[in-house]
């Protein structure tokens, strides 16, 4: 596709919708990054929206050229750029230091000095899931929703359908779990 056609295709996109959805995706990715790294802020004073804007810039300038014939959905292309940007942040020097105590690792893994990133992610995740489970004990809706998530579902609509539960009840459970998770995050970050 020649450049003038590409520019025309870019121009005709639903930009307000793309900007909102792409930034929401970046926020989710950064939230995930925070859990992986224990860091509260993005490096170099970056904000979530900067990731979305950078991706948009890369698509327009051709630094990450959009090919509508291969990927007709521009939002998907932009999301993949955001994902790469976040991956670079994970790899950046400011995020290479992990903060979990070494002795905690040694209790779980054999050999005791196995410090692979995957193993560490698994350890942190197991700890978080365990804490969430303990705190939602007795609240049936929350327990059911978490069970569905553990079983592979991740959207409120899918969970509501699987449980035969009204979707607004799933959203209520979502809110409660969100508050619990935030508290756990605060505690973990001291």
């Amino acid at each position, binding site marked *: 596709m020649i450049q003038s056609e590409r520019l025309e295709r870019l121009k005709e996109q639903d*930009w307000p919708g793309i900007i*909102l959805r792409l*930034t929401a995706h970046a926020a989710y990715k950064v939230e995930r990054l925070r*859990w992986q790294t224990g860091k509260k802020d993005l490096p170099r004073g970056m904000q979530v929206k900067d990731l979305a804007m950078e991706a948009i810039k890369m698509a*327009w300038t051709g630094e990450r050229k959009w090919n509508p014939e291969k990927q007709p959905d521009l939002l998907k292309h932009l999301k993949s750029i955001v994902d790469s940007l976040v991956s670079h942040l994970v790899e950046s020097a400011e995020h290479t230091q992990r903060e979990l105590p070494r002795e905690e690792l040694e209790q779980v893994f054999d050999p005791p000095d196995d410090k692979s990133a995957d193993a560490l992610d698994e350890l942190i995740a197991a700890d978080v899931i365990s804490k969430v489970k303990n705190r939602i004990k007795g609240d049936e809706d929350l327990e059911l929703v978490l069970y569905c998530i553990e079983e592979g579902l991740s959207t409120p609509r899918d969970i509501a359908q699987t449980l035969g539960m009204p979707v607004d009840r799933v959203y209520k459970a*979502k809110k409660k779990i969100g508050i619990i998770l935030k508290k756990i995050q605060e505690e973990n970050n001291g």
Partner: protein
Amino acid sequence: MADSGKVNEGGKDYAEKLDRLLKFLYDPEENDIEAVRENLAGYGIDPNELVSEGLSLVKFLEKQERTKLARMKRRRLAEVFDKLRKIDPQRPIDEVRRRIDEIFKTGDGSQFALAFFHKHEDLSDDDLRNLLSEAELLKLLEEEKKRLETSEE
């Protein structure tokens, strides 16, 4: 540690579960734009300001890229024009014939090229010179078109 007691060594069970939990909590369903807006507000991002900032950026980028494209096209057209100016209309007729042969023999075998290739020997010197001017122009434009298509893929 985990209430299940054991972490799946080498596996990613819990990491994947946490991923899904975070996706459930923080990744809004995209077809519900109001949910997306609320989600962003939850992060302290004003959706209206965000859209306004994003649209300004898009407008700026569109202008910048169109200007770049226009400059590139102008430069290339100037190159074509420059090549055309260097063609000498009064060159000796033998040279005109040789050049016509060259252009039509190395052409893409189009009906146009073949038709003229077979006829040009019957033409007068002036007609041959005119034919060459047009053939040179077509050849340059054709080359330019190919260059544009391949360089921008």
